[in-house]
């Protein structure tokens, strides 16, 4: 890898596919084949190396300086609170944090609310603002099951269409904080490559405007 290449960590999976579309709409990463199992692509013309990593590892790559930049959902940033710049709201991967549960159960609870979630930081902050005492039950997946199985009173999760909730008989009680994909950057890379990074950001913004 040439010294001057910028490195961008792109999450694999659904968010990554949307990211590749945006990059390609901006005339970048045109060689990248999303269906390939290759994890490193170089766009020598633009001077950018793309690293395809697990979504939960994007922040790690950027904060350790292995990647200058990354694309990741705001939900992950809220949880990890990394020291990175959030240069741009890329406008895709849109969803929202929601509190959901079985009908009415939520309002009945007067004391400590048991909250099952993959997002303890977001959940804790939200209920603290409402002065509610909660007990966090940290889960790694299938959070919808928790109220059904009696593990929790409510869940806090990111919701896009709400279909999974509906299919499991859960309703959304309230939503907070809009989520979408962000372009992040570590402060050191920014100090050394500010102009090029702002150019890249501008190209990504422009292609969003062209599409809307």
């Amino acid at each position, binding site marked *: 890898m040439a010294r001057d290449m910028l490195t961008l960590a792109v999450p694999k999976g659904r968010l990554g596919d949307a990211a590749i579309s945006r990059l390609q709409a901006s005339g970048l990463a045109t060689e990248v084949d999303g269906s390939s199992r290759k994890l490193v692509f170089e766009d020598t013309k633009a001077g950018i190396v793309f690293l395809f990593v697990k979504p939960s590892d994007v922040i790690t790559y950027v904060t350790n300086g292995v990647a200058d930049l990354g694309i990741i959902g705001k939900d992950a940033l809220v949880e990890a609170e990394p*020291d990175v710049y*959030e240069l741009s709201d890329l406008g895709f991967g849109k969803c929202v944090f929601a509190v959901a549960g079985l009908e009415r159960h939520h309002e009945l609870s007067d004391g400590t609310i048991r909250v099952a979630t993959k997002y303890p930081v977001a959940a804790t902050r939200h209920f603290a603002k409402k002065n509610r005492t909660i007990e966090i039950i940290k889960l790694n997946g299938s959070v919808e099951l928790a109220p059904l199985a009696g593990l929790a009173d409510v869940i806090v999760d990111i919701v896009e269409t709400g279909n999974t909730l509906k299919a499991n008989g859960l309703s959304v009680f309230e939503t907070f904080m809009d989520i979408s994909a962000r372009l992040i950057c570590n*402060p*050191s890379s920014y*100090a050394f490559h500010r102009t090029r990074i702002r150019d890249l950001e501008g190209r990504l913004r422009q292609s969003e405007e062209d599409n809307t």
Partner: protein
Amino acid sequence: MEFDSLQEELAYITRKASVMKEISDAVSHKGFVRYEPGYLEDHDAFLEMNRRIRKETLVRLIEPDGTLSVLRPDITRAIVRRLVPRWEDGLVFRLHYDATMFTRVPSGKTREVRQFGIEILGDGSDAADLEVLMAAADIFARFSLRFRIVIGHNAFLRSVIKGSGLPGDAQRDLYGLLMRKDRDGLKIFIRHHGIQESVFGKLTMLEGTLSDIRGMLEGVSDDALARSMSSLSAIDDAFVKAGLEESVIFDLGLVTRYDHYEGIVFKGFLKGYPEAVLQGGRYDPLTRQFNTDVPAVGCSIDIEQMIREVTRHGA
């Protein structure tokens, strides 16, 4: 730091000692006296004075009488607490230190960070600001490290925020947005609080050369802005004269985790290392917290990290 063999580790220790000696000699030569700061801070007083710091990052100790102390997370405050309350008019003191500070990382472990720092107490001039900045730049330059120093002056930012009439918690949110350079988040914030977008909307982008910044704020006339720009101009001139202008970026929206800077504020980065290794600025408000008005400016360097970069890339 991990080593393959003891021999390698001893070679590193030897190199480190010589780097430390060179730095220490260089600043001593410039008149900075070596100083040993204290280890403990009163917990409540510390939090009261550092509202932007995350509590969970502090290493707390419970004293036998039930009071809480904090293992110093910051050296500057320890120095000020010791010296400033007894300050006498007309005194000027240049000091340097090489000391360990303590923070708790998210895993719950205590992390020790060795800091090297310099401070000038009792001198409120632009020349003192410049002296500290140049000493820091000289430390990086003398080991041929590739570095960038981002320099701001927060008189303008403070005046803009004060003029907005935002309540305290909204100000905290705003500082968070600026710290993350979150331009889109800032737009939403402006809409939500119904504030004037003209200057506020640009706060994440007031960076680059001084003429870039002037261009962005064309038509804005403000005493605080004039103060910020004149202070930065003097710094710009000095860096140009030293042939180091490539290593400097100005940023009027620069904010730090500590509340106590007023005036010049800066952060420095080394090529290839993601976090700031240099932090500093003018912190007169910190001395005012001790009921006396002693102008003070200084900076600290994450010295372990810098030495790692010296052994890897430097000369």
